[in-house]
């Protein structure tokens, strides 16, 4: 008998609010959380806006030692894990720890901490032979970030399979896909799955400056993330995390758990084309979508909402619009498609999980979040992108996609339990 996997707990730390409720309020109000970078002086950089999260570790309940020990990205992941575990209502004490695993996505992991340590050890770039006297005991964990999933495992008491999935900007989607696979195949009964990235730092900003991937709309930060709009000129860097409790469906049902959604299909492909560039035709993403629909055993017309990658770069938004047309056919023109990156920015590896949270909440509340800042659509982006205002409508089946450096193209289908809500 096929094991099915459902989401029973959600935790979110995204720009513009703390926790799942504030996140959903932001999205449904169509408010944006992008702003002028405040974490450091961004004056020397080409792109100077970001979606920063107001995250206060003390208020989150972290002890001084935890704050010292955990990198910012780890704190986000652990805070979300705690929220998701509480939300699930699952009594972890009653579950065999070996049957609980962790699958944490992150694209650049401890990049911000690496840079902070570098500045001291290398004296801001003056010493190639970094000074060992200034070596932090946590430096190893910033170099090799296994500690991130480890902290999540400790927070949840997981002793089963634990890993970090680091597929660049599809990490958040792929980490949940990985967790789903482990439950399906019987390697675990419960997975703590999700992603975290806190990349707002000079080196990461410089990376994207160098290839002109981020926006230069510096004089209008609140409206800088403009997916599908003709005036878009790059993505807005962001930070955040979302974590989920995934459970085997029958066990979740038996304990009377709240079920947000079932993950019925997941697929990923590579374009084998370019580390950062996309072909215009979108065929590999279309293939991932086709495979995810196939796995879900549904026709494209069943999809009620498409959560787009919608990063707001010129090439991405056309690429995935083409992919939707191939994979969904005529239905691509009928189904609402939106990008929440217009509001919470692009948090690299984390955003795929944050978007899954948005999809699960869209199913729960029967609301499609909008694409903010979309006033004048790019003529080549000719679908229904739900401009500016959230839309109340029946949402039982959702497609969410991701596209990332390295050529990764991923797609996932989430559905209300038993396909439709009661």
């Amino acid at each position, binding site marked *: 008998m096929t094991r099915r996997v459902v989401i029973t707990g959600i935790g979110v730390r995204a720009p513009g609010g703390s926790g799942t409720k504030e996140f959903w309020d932001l999205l449904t109000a169509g408010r944006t959380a992008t702003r002028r970078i405040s974490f450091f002086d961004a004056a020397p*950089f080409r792109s100077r806006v970001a979606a920063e999260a107001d995250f206060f570790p003390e208020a989150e309940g972290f002890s001084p030692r935890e704050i010292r020990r955990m990198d910012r990205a780890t704190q986000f992941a652990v805070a979300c894990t705690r929220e998701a575990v509480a939300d699930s209502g699952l009594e972890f004490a009653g579950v065999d720890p070996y049957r609980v*695993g962790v699958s944490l996505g992150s694209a650049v*992991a401890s990049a911000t901490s690496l840079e902070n340590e570098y500045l001291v050890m290398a004296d*801001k770039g003056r010493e190639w032979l970094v000074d060992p006297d200034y*070596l932090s005991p946590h430096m*190893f964990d910033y170099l090799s970030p296994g500690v991130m999933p480890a902290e999540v495992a400790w927070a949840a008491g997981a002793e089963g399979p634990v890993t970090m999935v*680091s597929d660049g900007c599809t990490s958040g989607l792929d980490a949940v896909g990985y967790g789903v696979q482990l439950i399906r195949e019987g390697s675990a009964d419960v997975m703590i799955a999700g992603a975290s990235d806190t990349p707002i730092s000079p080196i990461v900003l410089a990376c994207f400056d160098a290839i002109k991937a981020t926006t230069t709309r510096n004089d209008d930060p609140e409206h800088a993330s403009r997916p599908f709009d003709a005036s878009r000129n790059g993505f807005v860097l962001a930070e955040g995390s979302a974590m989920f409790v995934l459970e085997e469906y029958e066990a979740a049902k038996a304990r009377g758990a709240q079920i947000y959604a079932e993950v019925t299909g997941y697929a990923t492909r590579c374009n084998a084309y*370019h580390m950062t560039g996309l072909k215009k035709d979108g065929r590999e993403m279309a293939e991932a979508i086709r495979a995810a629909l196939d796995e879900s055993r549904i026709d494209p017309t069943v999809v009620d909402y498409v959560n787009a990658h919608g990063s707001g770069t010129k090439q991405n938004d056309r690429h995935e619009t083409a992919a939707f047309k191939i994979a969904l056919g005529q239905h691509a023109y009928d189904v609402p498609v939106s990008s929440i990156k217009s509001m919470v920015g692009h948090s690299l590896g984390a955003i795929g999980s944050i978007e899954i949270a948005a999809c699960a909440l869209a199913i729960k509340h029967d609301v499609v979040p909008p694409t903010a800042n979309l006033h004048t659509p790019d003529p080549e982006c000719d679908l229904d992108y739900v401009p500016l205002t959230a839309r109340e409508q029946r949402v039982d089946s959702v497609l969410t996609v991701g596209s990332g*450096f390295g050529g990764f193209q991923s797609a996932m289908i989430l559905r209300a339990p038993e396909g439709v809500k009661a």
Partner: protein
Amino acid sequence: MTSKDGLNDVNGRNARTVITGIGITAPNGLGTEAFWKAVLAGHTGIAPVTRFDASRYAASLAGQIDDFDAAEHLGSRLLPQTDPSTRLALVAADWALTDAGVSPDTLPDYDMGVVTSNALGGFDFTHREFDKLWSKGPDFVSVYESFAWFYAVNTGQISIRHKLRGPSAALVGEQAGGLDALGHARRTIRRGTPLVVAGGVDSALDPWGYVSQLAGGRVTTATDPARAYLPFSADASGYVPGEGGAILVTEDEASARERGVQQIYGELAGYAATFDPAPGSGRPPALRRAAEAALADAGLAPGDIDVVFADGAGVPELDAAEAEAISAVFGAGAVPVTAPKALTGRLYSGGGPLDVATALLSIRDGVIPPTPTGAPVPEAYGLDLVQGAPRDRRVRTALVLARGRHGFNSAVVVRGA
């Protein structure tokens, strides 16, 4: 309805995954046969650090790959955009695919994927870009930095070089992640993708990377390359960091035979992973459970295993814990144990896949490679450690163990084809 990567196992849980190609870049040998010869002869790749002046640092040794000329193997387009670790990974993948007789048109589009593990990222490259940013400014940062650095770089570059468009991924699990990559490759094959290039290669031997490895507190300060990294020895004092690893071609057996594969090194018969409990929880460590679960997954009993390739941390309390786990599974001294990684240093994501490759060669040639000799193995370990000289013995099955800092435990069982 067919699905290449359904969440269900299209090929079934009983479909066999086999290894049909091996590519090795190790400090003591480039290429499978050079490496294997060095391992059997006990030639070490550990030496004083030569890439930079390490005189200010507490440690001074590394497993460096010194005779590797990337330009000889890779096109000029790739050199400016790749870290040393990625160059090694690309060459290892080239060799593995050549060994397996696979080219981009061997199988239909989307039927070949890539799963690598990576624990350190493109760190040497990144260190140089940090320097440019902070000494000259953002305009001087390379257009390649955004992808030369991140952990997915080797998967992406291998995919592009060989036009592999199937399901792919990059996993991080410190020194255990390389075995997880092989486990995920088998999972991907079972879900319907016939061939997955899988393994791990790492390197961080620039000054900042090297010093950051020392921060972990487990790198030896010994200075004699022959007596520095001595797993299970009474005078073990830590490990030596190295660079390199192995990339393997893993395939669905039926598909491999159908395409007329040249050789099958063995079957990836079992895999499992566990995580140690939180510090202070009072619960037992989980390595034993990973080993037992991998054996069960392979349908084997402890008595069926001919050799254990140990994680061999080279840190006394970690060696003792591993010895205890091995003895608990097999009985004291009941199975030969070896740790040839003492000749390369610990290779992070590369360590597990290189051990799997070594185990497959052990099966092929009927010989167990030795662990370099240190002081005697403490009696309390109860280990039959293969030391000094290779041990001739028919090897049909091997258990490979890997552990990662903070509690990762992964285990793979390989079986002769």
